[in-house]
């Protein structure tokens, strides 16, 4: 079986996001780019599954739709342990465009399991995984928290509001992963970094596809008014303010 993990290239989570050109573009000066945290967990789980020889996994490949700047992020994915990387060379215009590009690649190069993160920490649209499922006419498992094998059978859990479902299905499918899928994201080791240099990173041209949406402007959130401090000895004042001033109790 082959696993394909979708990788989104996003600003480090500590980044203070700034904009330029009249709030039309992200100011990328000084931004550190990382693998989207959920994609990193998906990749970690895929590699764990492959490393356990009792599982029927032969290959873990990562894919990104992006420009040349994303190669560094893909090299990191290779250093963590992916076998090969694909970059579809295009500006990722919107989720529909990205999913359409990846779906086209999968139609030409079949995979059994495709993993994506529950959302990308930049545009928070939670869309690529579900769109892939639809482009490919596959099931897509949202909020997947466990992926494993019981012999040849898959063991899949997904979170639902107030609980957990254990699912029965056979590949191919898209797994949209959330926290829990792997314990900690794996960090590349020196050996992995050395090996990554020799692993294939293939750059493919994009297909013709129209995006359906575009961001026309960004906005910074307004600074919050200052915090009202309450004496720890006068806590009834806090409850009183929450009721009468903030009106949230």
């Amino acid at each position, binding site marked *: 079986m082959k696993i394909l993990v979708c990788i989104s290239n996003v600003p480090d989570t500590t980044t203070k996001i700034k904009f330029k050109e009249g709030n039309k573009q992200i100011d990328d000066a000084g931004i550190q780019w990382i693998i989207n945290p959920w994609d990193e967990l998906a990749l970690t789980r895929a590699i764990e599954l492959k490393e356990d020889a009792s599982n029927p996994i032969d290959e873990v490949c990562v894919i990104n739709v992006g420009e040349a700047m994303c190669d560094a992020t893909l090299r990191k994915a290779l250093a963590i342990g992916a076998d090969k990387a694909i970059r579809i060379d295009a500006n990722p215009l919107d989720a529909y465009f990205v999913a359409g590009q990846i779906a086209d690649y999968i139609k030409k190069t079949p995979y059994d399991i495709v993993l994506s993160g529950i959302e990308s920490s930049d545009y928070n649209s939670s869309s690529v995984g579900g769109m892939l499922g639809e482009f490919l006419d596959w099931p897509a498992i949202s909020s997947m928290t466990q992926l494993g094998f019981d012999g040849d059978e898959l063991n899949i859990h997904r979170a639902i509001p107030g*609980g957990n479902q254990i699912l029965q299905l056979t590949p191919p499918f898209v797994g949209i992963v959330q926290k829990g899928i792997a314990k900690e994201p794996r960090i590349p080791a020196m050996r992995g970094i050395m090996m990554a240099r020799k692993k294939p990173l293939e750059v493919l041209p994009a297909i013709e596809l129209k995006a359906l949406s575009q961001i026309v402007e960004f906005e910074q959130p307004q600074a919050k008014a200052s915090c009202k401090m309450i004496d720890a000895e006068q806590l009834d004042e806090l409850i009183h303010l929450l009721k009468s001033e903030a009106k949230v109790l």
Partner: protein
Amino acid sequence: MSVIAFAKNWEGKFKKSTYELVSYAKDLASRLNTQTLVLSIGEVDESELEKLALYGADRIISVNDSRLNVLSSRIYAEVISQFVRKEFATHILLSDNNSGKAISPRLSVKLQAGLAAAVLDVPKSLEPFVVKKQVFSGKAFAYVQIDSEKKILTLSKNSFGVKENPSTAAIEYFTPELKEDLFKIKVKSEESSDNKIILTDADIVVSAGRGMKSPDNWKPVEDFAAALGAAVACSRPVSDDGWRSHEEHVGQTGKVIAPNLYFAVGISGAIQHVAGVSRSKCIVAINTDPEAPIFSVADYGVVGDAMTVLPKLTEIVLNGE
């Protein structure tokens, strides 16, 4: 042209977020000078369906099929798209919750309709169609322009509010054509957690962090939450270390929540934590360190030890001020 809102039910009942979505749909339909159609999928009693009229539904359409009582994003997207095509609808609205997040991307591909997820406000303009959404986990906003003829929005919780707007809509029924092979995913079993209040639905959330020092110190947190009827949440290290379940983790990499009232107890206020809770209407911070960054995003703050502050607050809530 018409506006369709998908009214999700939970075991045959609608929630506040459903009514908020219908209220938003009504507002949008008025701006577009068109009708508000509300579509319900799965078995729901007529008395429950009628409630949708209170928030402005012009037509209430029920797909009353027991096979659809359990959510399947694939099947629901198929049902909604058949209905959209039948009605030549142009604007399709879902709530930005688990089900909306799962259904809307599939619907977008089926209908070639641009999707704006986690929308925060009424459209900034109708021609071109531009809406505001959250990006970078709440660290910024973006205005998204949808260029396709059909448009899909998922609405963030507590972004528009529930607005009454009574209408006299009759209930209609719709029977989609569904192929058997759509029913392929089988649920082997289901476990429910003992959390009675669902975190992403809760109006009040009491969240605690590493400042509690040990998983054995959570009783004051739970007692305070119980007194308020609040859900319990935690910071990431607390769930990473197994002190609390992953379900309670809020923040950029956990759940993103927008309750009316959020208590951050023994939580320093790291940027990734704040990203997941910044849309809370009111934030109260309780922390021993007056310099903790959480105070710069809080509305009210108490400098003090959680282990003594929480029991006192519980006492005040239970016995009155």
